[in-house]
């Protein structure tokens, strides 16, 4: 049985001029990036335009991709930058140039797939309800961790922040979501 071609191999082919390989990469990632975009740009219109920009930038900048890196992280980084530009352009929420939570060392919060699965199952409604109130700084790690199944390391590489800061933002985001949900659902049973 033939080994499937990896994303990195496809990217190398696109670098060599193979346009069909770009179509294959598009097919593999179109719905993922659209899902990421819809969740991150929660209340913004023109998500499709932003996603289109992402893929155009991927093609234009393909020569900067190094095959010893992970293609999906590189692609998500381009998507992150594009979506942040959309938020800045609309001006509905502030996007800081510098955040103090990237400045200091924090203890890394533990992460297990069990934790992620359990939380997603029980709290998906909670997350959906509280999403609109989260700033982009907290919304994005939630989207990448819970919905795009990215690791802390990958999220750090996508957002260009320290790994420990990813843990801190996820932890704070969860607290905010929980508070918001409980305040709007007083009868919610918090017992484990």
């Amino acid at each position, binding site marked *: 049985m033939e080994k499937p071609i990896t994303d990195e191999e496809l990217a190398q082919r696109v*670098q060599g001029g193979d*346009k069909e390989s*770009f*179509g294959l990469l*598009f*097919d593999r990632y*179109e*719905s993922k990036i*659209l899902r990421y975009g819809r969740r991150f740009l929660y209340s913004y219109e023109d998500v*499709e335009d932003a*996603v*289109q920009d992402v*893929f*155009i930038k991927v*093609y*234009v*900048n*393909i*020569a*900067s991709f190094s095959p010893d890196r992970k293609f999906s992280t590189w692609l998500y980084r381009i998507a992150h930058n594009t979506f942040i530009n959309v938020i800045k352009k609309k001006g509905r929420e502030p996007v800081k140039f510098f955040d103090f939570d*990237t*400045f*200091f*060392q*924090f203890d890394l919060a533990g992460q297990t797939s069990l934790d992620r699965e359990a939380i997603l199952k029980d709290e998906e409604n909670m997350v959906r309800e509280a999403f609109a109130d989260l700033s982009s700084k907290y919304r994005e790690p939630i989207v990448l961790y819970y919905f795009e199944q990215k690791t802390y390391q990958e999220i*750090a*590489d996508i957002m*260009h*922040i*320290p*790994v*420990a*800061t990813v843990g801190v933002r996820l932890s704070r985001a969860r607290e905010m979501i929980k508070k918001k949900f409980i305040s709007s659902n007083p009868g919610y049973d918090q017992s484990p």
Partner: protein
Amino acid sequence: MTKALNKMKEFITEKIARGEIVKHSRIYYIVLNCALYLGAIAALVLAIFFGSFVVFIFKFRHPWLLVGFGWPGFWRLLLSLPWLIAGFVFVLIAAIEFVSWKYTRFYRKPLLYSILVVILVVVAVSSLVSQTALHSTMFRYAQRNRLPFAGFMYRMFNARHLPDGYFGQVVSEDGLVWQIKTNEDEDVRVILNNDTRFPTGKDIHVLDNVLVFGTRTSSIIYARGIRKVDKDTVPHWSENSRPMILP
């Protein structure tokens, strides 16, 4: 949704086929990265140059001596420091940080670590460079107006006295009126009063080197404080010698 995505794929692939969307070449990124590296190196070299200038000025003028004269002295110390230049050094450090943040090795760790490393490198190398003859040579060229670009900077900090602080040697002392010869070869009268402070004690005699802190009007200084200093501390130079620098 599939229809919309197919439409998007067609739109992009057609534009690529028509040549409306073109890849950047590898050379483009090589040139870009080289420009970034060179920019960061240039910023580092400039930060070290200006940082060493700040250290040199600090060693040359000994502004910390003013602290002994209380809050007015401390305030003059603050005024005597090259704040603009120090601020420019921090801007250069921030620029180096901004470039380094593009690379995995730097952004994966807290910002504090990389900033500390850059500051330590700049401070350490600046201290070493300030010990060389670089700035004293540049001072001499600036005095002779032979330094076109940075000459104004050296001339601005050329003063051998501090704000309201005057180095000199005691020529005579007569109660509350002393006579000193400043390190700029001026004969100046120093008027003391009962509130004049002596941070190093009142044991000051003729031929002792002193720093007088006070307001000067023409050739009279109304002394708020006087302290003894070592001969080596007094900043001076002639055309042929180097400025006195603390070891």
